[in-house]
């Protein structure tokens, strides 16, 4: 896939989508998640494990990155703009049902995909990945501090951690794939600004 690199929209035709806080939270969370996924691959996929070895070090990095994963969001809560975005992600209006129904029916017409600042798919993704991260954190801690929980829990925690890791990997790939297909959305997270045309097209109900 080639990434389109259109020139940014000229000044005056752009709108502010994200401030420093949201972009900082997204960037650090993405970096930590990347470390988690990369180290997980080295622990789990035999070909990478053969290449890398150093099992104890890789486990330690994985644990630290996993533990730190929720920190950017928690720090971000200090920002009013970030809290406002969390509120937008949380609340589903009637238009989100319309969007979801169209997504299920594979109806790609713009008119059937009404969205505010975030569309319903982004809202579902954000809340699911937040919940999944917490489950990964909890089960990971059970595997790490094996004496804190009853012993039978460790096997169960490993089981949940393994399968959820696979699911998270697939969902993350979808998330990244969609970002690769939408350069203006990526520019929004990189610079904070998007073109008015894009905003009208992708997020018609958003009033920046």
């Amino acid at each position: 896939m080639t990434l389109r690199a259109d020139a940014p929209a000229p000044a005056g035709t752009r709108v502010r989508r994200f401030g420093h806080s949201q972009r900082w939270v997204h960037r650090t969370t993405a970096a930590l998640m990347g470390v988690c996924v990369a180290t997980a691959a080295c622990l789990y996929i035999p070909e990478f494990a053969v290449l890398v070895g150093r099992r104890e070090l890789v486990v330690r990095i994985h644990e630290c990155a996993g533990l730190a994963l929720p920190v950017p969001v928690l720090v971000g809560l200090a920002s009013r703009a970030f809290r406002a975005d969390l509120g937008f992600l949380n609340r589903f209006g009637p238009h989100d049902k319309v969007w979801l129904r169209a997504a299920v029916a594979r109806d790609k017409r713009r008119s059937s995909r009404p969205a505010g600042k975030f569309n319903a798919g982004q809202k579902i993704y954000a809340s699911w990945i937040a919940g999944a991260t917490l489950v990964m954190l909890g089960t990971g801690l059970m595997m790490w501090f094996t004496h804190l929980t009853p012993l039978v829990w460790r096997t169960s925690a490993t089981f949940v951690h393994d399968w959820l890791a696979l699911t998270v990997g697939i969902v993350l790939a979808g998330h990244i794939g969609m970002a690769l297909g939408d350069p203006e959305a990526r520019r929004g997270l990189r610079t904070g600004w998007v073109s008015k045309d894009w905003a009208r097209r992708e997020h018609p109900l958003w009033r920046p």
Partner: protein
Amino acid sequence: MNSEPPEDREPSKDRPASQSWVPSQDQVPPKGRDADRDADRGADRGARRAASADGGGTPVGRRVLLGTLGLGALGLFTAPTLQRALEAFLGAASGDDPTGLTGLLPNGGGFRYYSVTGSVPHKNASNYRLTIDGLVDKPGTYTLSDLRSLPQTRLVKDVQCVTGWRVPHTPFEGVQLSRLLDAAGVRSSARAVRFTCFDGAYSESLTLDQARRSDVLVALRMQNKDIGHDHGGPVRLYVAPMYFYKSAKWLSGITVTDEVKPGYWEERGYDVDAWVGRSNGRDDDPTS
């Protein structure tokens, strides 16, 4: 943190509170849905957010998050049952899966590669040596061909890793450890055996009684072929009744000692007496 330019502020307050979502003519066909429904759930919230579709509405995000947490907890409680079912299913599926993809799934069967060091030197018939020393009358060194010339024992049992994976009916062939110990002449003060490895880091240990069991081998072959480097070749330990971390890979030294010294993983919290199903808090079926 709040240094965003003015465009970033929350929606203006000058629109009516009831319009939490108003489709414009060309966007969405009206569904006859009463958008006012949610507006009176707190006039302040409604007033601040009414201008756009954002902000109002039901907290579905929170429900999805809590639901995911709930599913995770449910997964913990149902894991033993689910795991058994999946292992049975994937174990059967991996039998006739030419792509090998099932091996990448959790509980998909097959061995996983664990090494505690960055790289491990390769040893072959010309440079491999196994030394036996410590509390013995005749310390010595074996080459690969020395070991091959000794009587070989074949065992076919399940391999169980402490992290959960199990590989059924895996053949191992090699020299019984008790034979090497007897040949070296263990002194009466000896109580334990320590194993060291040519990866330079790994170590293991067994009590003398454990080491003398007939199902403990200095293994030269696994799965009916010479043990390859990734599986700990050319020579690894095979302790059939214990979790697989006891079966040290790249075995290069056997030292008879007067007490058990915990090995690499045992220094890091795993049990020294690692009987399958009776240690490390696990209840797997015994392997031997």
